[in-house]
């Protein structure tokens, strides 16, 4: 602190000069600064939110006749988001004649992720090996082309599952983000968000043990 040390000279007779400390009381300034810092710390948005990109298939216009794409039943995996973060899944196609029971699982690391990993093993390993090679320097690649290289790997893959993601009406937005996130964690090449049909709705309600709300459309009844 800027304090001038004054030497005391005791000389008789002379009037003592009044000692004045040049120290300034800084407490109010510190108080104010504390306040301002607190204010700025609280109003600063530190972590900028991130975005997750998704693309949905183009909608089919009402007067357009489009054949649904043919996909291999053996590779199809249906995932249905239920209420209370429940996840149901079944492989293949729902057939009213031979109903497959729904498997119930959850969002833990051993839940739906394991199911997806088991089916996507080949592709997942390929992507991980590729990433490993890039990190260790075996493959030289520009930083910004890594993502497109991985996309190419996914595109060329024909072993992984085709995941159809559906939502029961009481599912939450969180499930929507979580399941799409799960797709990118596991490296699923093809996934589609579609609507739940009446049969699947019934399957979910049966699994939940609540009364069925969906009836078969007229064309499906025989």
């Amino acid at each position, binding site marked *: 602190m800027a304090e001038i040390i004054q030497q005391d000279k005791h000389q008789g007779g002379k009037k003592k000069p009044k000692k004045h400390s040049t120290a300034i009381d800084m407490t109010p300034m510190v108080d104010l600064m504390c306040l301002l810092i607190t204010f*700025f710390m609280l109003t600063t948005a530190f972590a900028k939110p991130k975005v997750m990109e998704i693309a949905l298939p183009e909608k089919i216009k009402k007067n357009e006749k489009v054949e649904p794409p043919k996909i291999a039943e053996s590779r199809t995996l249906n995932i249905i988001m239920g209420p209370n973060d429940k996840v149901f899944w079944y492989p293949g196609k729902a057939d009213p004649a031979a109903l497959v029971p729904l498997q119930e699982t959850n969002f833990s690391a051993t839940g739906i992720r394991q199911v997806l990993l088991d089916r996507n093993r080949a592709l*997942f390993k390929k992507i991980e090996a590729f990433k490993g090679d890039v990190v260790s320097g075996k493959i030289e690649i520009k930083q910004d082309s890594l993502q497109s290289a991985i996309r190419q790997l996914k595109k060329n893959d024909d072993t992984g599952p085709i995941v159809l993601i559906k939502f029961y009406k009481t599912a939450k937005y969180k499930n929507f983000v979580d399941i799409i996130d799960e797709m990118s964690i596991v490296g699923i090449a093809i996934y589609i968000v579609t609507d739940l049909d009446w049969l699947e709705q019934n399957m979910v309600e049966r699994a939940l043990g609540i009364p069925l709300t969906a009836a078969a459309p007229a064309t499906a009844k025989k």
Partner: protein
Amino acid sequence: MPKIKIQHKTPHVDMTPMVDLFSLLLTFFMLTATMKPSEPAPVDTPASISEKPTPDKNIMTITIAKDNRVFFNVDNGPDTILHFRPKILEEMGKRYNIVFTPQELRYFEKNSVPFGVNIKDFKAYLSAKESEKAKFEKGIPIDSTDNQLAFWILFSRQVNPTAQSLIKGDNDVEYPTVKKVLDILQDKNVNRFSLITSLEKVEVVVQDAKK
């Protein structure tokens, strides 16, 4: 015996280093501060592993709050030369037969906050005091009978075709509402959009895949 005089001295702490540090911190925070954009409703976004940062211009954001209210905002960054916002509001006004005054348009341009206001209340909303604005935030109607969100999206894209669509939803929004918003976006030929999330790290190793 004379009493020993105890010198009365206030204990003095040298505050200089503290002040130094404080001024440093204060300068740092003041310079890095980007104010948190004010929000009419608190939204708790879900987490994902995506590390892509949110763009801060050329965006239109659709916010879905916990109580299924829908908010909309257009942010074109600092380039106010193009005056996107007043143009969008003017188009909206034409569609619903409401004439906005230049003052109202200018006010709308300057205050880039998400709004969830029925277009019929918009004039009142713009002239209302800051503290009374909340009562107009009933959410933008998205029903098929009165689908104002669709028109906001339509005009935003007409005025600024390069705008990206962002969706910011709360964890607990029910899927049918999300589905409705997605349908509206798709009806307006927006098939590619970004979901705003917070960051979460997940490690999956090859061993998990073996088993």
